[in-house]
């Protein structure tokens, strides 16, 4: 082990850590804040919230996104809601309960102190968002409404119809635009980070490509924040946006940042099933639907009858049967595996046999179609548009799909990676969700990191480290620019026979088949060989048309897929090494008698932070032991 994995968790009781730490952190005086430049890569919830807040504090911020506007970051697509321990429903919620649910939901593979802080600031997030004008759903009396989500027995999820992510992002985006107008933030849309520049062990800037002109540019800063999202697109078909990519975090990894738990991927149980070869993405149907929808398959194998013709006693409501206390609101990893199990038994429905029903018949009978329309109208419309079927009349057909990645760059309590001055927020880091994220917690984490954590901890870093003055003429910047330009030229010059998309699709299939919902030693070994061979072919046979001095979407994609081909291998290596099952990582060799994930706390209660060892060399495993002082480790049960 060569990485320093000091989590820098403050001492003292769990409930006092963050407060105490805020007092102990050093402050930067307002005059000096104006002299410090902070780079933020990504403009989703974590990025926009962080950039806006740090600008409000007085720092000079440069914010980068590859989309044409920061408002288009993929946080916008989050549907169901955001958790907060407000206990407005008086149903027994508390900061501690949210903390506990999140640690347990993550199958005891997250860091206690980070999760507690997340639960603590969750209440401030709702206040902040309401002040910005986020139109959360309300009761007739004018108070905020809540709904339930998976993995919890309380109602703590705040929502704005089925577009919560959109409304939260627009709130953060508007705060960001306000700062742009005041010249506190310089925004660089249609710009992609292609390398990180580290000088004397400290992150000092990034190299970018302007996606419209192709210009390669250096940007110098005193601290860098990566808020560039997750890497679910390794699987080609996922609920991520087409542009979502791992390039920023992957380049940081290659510059020395540890990559933690890359094999932890979340497969979301309720997505619209794949319909054909040409398909470019999968669409999520919010988990909130499981509040009213009941999941079932026929009891008989190969039952091809119209679902409406199948009588009640020939249906298997398998989630309600197996997990009576959580029922249809079992956590995502468990609900996904249960769906796979019934499909493997030959009881799956739909043309491909890879689907289960999500049925609103009972709910419509109970509360009426109008109430259901009010709760989920836009989701039902979206479903109908894609599948051409009316979910008010026919049960929805759903199947699990890749949705989120819990793994990401390793960070300490201050959200700083193993490279000094390089901070990582939101889905791009690994810190809060362990091996499985609970629904409505991604929005919470993105905003907690952006609004409340990073503005404090970056200040502490700047106050404790007086970085030397450098500019873009520094040899490290020049060398990084040169490497980026070389790589771009290389991709354009291969002039092979296969399109980037065909490689991406093949990589996705390998990952889904062998490193997806269930994994085993033999399959992972096989996948390792396949991914390496595919990467070899990629650099010999990819065809990237066009030039590097214009808008060239094929070239953008080619760079991202090249990185996915490397990251995919690391995910497989991590999945191979973690011989236990936990959360979203299910090793077939490690399961209980009734087929649930079986952890091995004695040998695997640690964070695996992988370190880049150089081209062609195997990555080095570093371990951060997970210490549980407040929560008792137990077999996770939702029965």
């Amino acid at each position, binding site marked *: 082990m060569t990485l320093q994995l000091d989590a820098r968790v403050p001492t003292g009781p769990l409930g006092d850590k963050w407060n105490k730490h805020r007092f102990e952190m050093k402050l930067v005086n307002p005059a000096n804040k104006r002299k410090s430049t902070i780079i933020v890569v990504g403009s989703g919830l974590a990025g926009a919230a962080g950039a806006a807040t740090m600008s409000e504090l007085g720092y000079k911020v440069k914010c980068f996104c590859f989309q044409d506007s920061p*408002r288009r970051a*993929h946080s916008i697509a989050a549907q169901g809601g955001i958790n907060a321990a407000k206990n407005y429903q008086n149903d027994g919620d508390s900061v501690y309960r949210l903390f506990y649910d999140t640690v347990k939901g993550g199958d005891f593979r997250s860091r206690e102190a980070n999760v507690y802080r997340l639960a603590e600031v969750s209440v401030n997030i709702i206040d902040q968002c309401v002040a910005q004008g986020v139109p959360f759903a309300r009761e007739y009396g004018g108070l905020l409404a809540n709904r339930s989500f998976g993995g919890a027995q309380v109602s703590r999820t705040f929502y704005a119809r089925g577009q919560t992510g959109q409304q939260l992002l627009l709130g953060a985006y508007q705060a960001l635009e*306000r700062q742009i107008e005041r010249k506190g933030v310089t925004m660089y849309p249609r710009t992609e980070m292609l390398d990180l520049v580290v000088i004397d062990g400290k992150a000092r800037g990034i190299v970018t490509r302007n996606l419209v002109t192709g210009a390669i540019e250096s940007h110098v800063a005193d601290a860098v924040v990566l808020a560039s999202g997750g890497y679910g697109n390794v699987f080609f078909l996922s609920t991520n946006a087409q542009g979502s990519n791992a390039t920023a975090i992957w380049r940081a990894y290659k510059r020395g940042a540890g990559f933690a738990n890359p094999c932890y991927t979340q497969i979301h149980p309720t997505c619209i099933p794949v319909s054909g070869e040409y398909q470019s993405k999968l669409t999520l149907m919010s988990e909130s639907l499981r509040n009213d929808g009941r999941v079932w398959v026929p009891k008989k194998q190969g039952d091809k009858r119209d679902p409406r013709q199948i009588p009640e006693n020939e249906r298997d409501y398998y989630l309600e049967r197996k997990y009576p206390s959580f029922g249809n609101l079992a956590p995502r990893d468990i609900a996904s595996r249960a769906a796979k199990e019934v499909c493997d038994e030959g009881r799956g429905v739909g043309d491909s046999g890879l689907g289960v029903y999500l049925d609103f018949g009972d709910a419509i009978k109970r509360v009426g179609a109008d109430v259901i329309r009010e709760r989920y109208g836009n989701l039902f419309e979206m479903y109908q548009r894609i599948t051409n079927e009316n979910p008010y009349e026919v049960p929805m057909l759903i199947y699990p799909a890749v949705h989120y990645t819990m793994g990401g760059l390793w960070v300490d309590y201050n959200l700083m990676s193993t490279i000094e001055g390089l901070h990582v927020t939101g889905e791009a880091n690994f810190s809060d969700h362990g091996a499985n994220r609970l629904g409505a917690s991604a929005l919470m984490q993105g905003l907690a990191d952006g609004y409340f954590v990073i503005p404090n901890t970056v200040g502490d870093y700047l106050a404790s480290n007086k970085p030397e003055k450098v500019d873009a003429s520094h040899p490290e910047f020049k060398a990084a620019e040169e490497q980026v330009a070389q790589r771009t030229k290389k991709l354009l010059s291969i002039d092979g026979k296969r399109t980037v998309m065909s490689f991406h699709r093949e990589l996705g299939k390998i990952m889904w088949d062998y490193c997806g919902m269930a994994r085993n030693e033999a399959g992972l070994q096989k996948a390792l060989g396949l991914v390496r061979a595919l990467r070899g072919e990629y650099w010999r046979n990819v065809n990237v048309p066009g030039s590097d001095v214009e808008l060239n979407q094929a070239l953008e994609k080619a760079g991202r897929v090249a990185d996915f081909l490397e990251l995919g291998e690391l995910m497989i290596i991590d999945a191979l090494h973690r011989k236990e099952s936990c959360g979203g990582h299910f090793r077939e060799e490690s399961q209980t008698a009734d087929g649930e994930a079986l952890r091995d706390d004695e040998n695997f209660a640690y964070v695996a932070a992988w370190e880049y060892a150089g081209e062609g060399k195997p990555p080095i495993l570093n371990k951060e032991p997970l210490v549980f002082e407040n929560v008792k480790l137990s077999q996770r049960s939702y029965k």
Partner: protein
Amino acid sequence: MRFRLHVWRQSGPDQPGKMVQYEATDVSPDMSFLEMLDVVNQGLTERGEVPIAFDHDCREGICCSCSLMINGIAHGPMKGTATCQLHMRSFKDGATIYIEPWRARAFPVIKDLAVDRSALDRIVQAGGFITAPTGGAQDANSILVSKESVDAAMDAAQCIGCGACVAACPNASASLFTAAKITHLGLLPQGQPERYRRALSMVEQMDLESFGSCTLHGECQEACPKEISIDSITRMNRDFIRAGVWGTRPWHWLFGVRLRRSDQLPVRSPD
């Protein structure tokens, strides 16, 4: 299914563009419109031609990177649907389809079907927010908002900023976009202190960006993938005029050329 496509090709902002004809074959009715274009692009790449550039990202109708005038209709023939959610089953097999970028002076073409919509961001910068720096907020439930108000605010807040309203408008006006934000924030108690300043600044910026004026054709609400109503434009005009009447501007200013950014000037609230 198969289609004959006429696609606008333009290699750069200052280059002349033209319609070019392509054949799309082996199209499945379950493909989305953008997936059909993916297939066309795959073919172009394999033949060594430059693929068609078009903006797209989430492909679930919410980020609205996607645009496209399809047979002269913004986002194509299906009402309340963004291009990425439009499926080929909405077209007749063998049909001819014309695909063009958003056309407006304020949206210059970058390449082929991709346009620069940053003017919309600048309208938001001018005042499309509630000033609430992080940290100062009171408990969320201490602000009561009636369900009716929040539902109406949400109807307007759904705007995805695609620019279809501009593309559909014969005057290339961004009134629906601007009005949707003014309505969303103006309907909430939190939005009241800046309500009139916001209306002034945003409308002024809209004019500066060389969008046209609104003459209430209503094409925008027909094209809007979120079906936002032009009632919001009435609301915007009302707020704008009230701001002018009670504010420090002379009356004729409202109807004359508006040149200066209003937020440097004090605007008195009528309430």
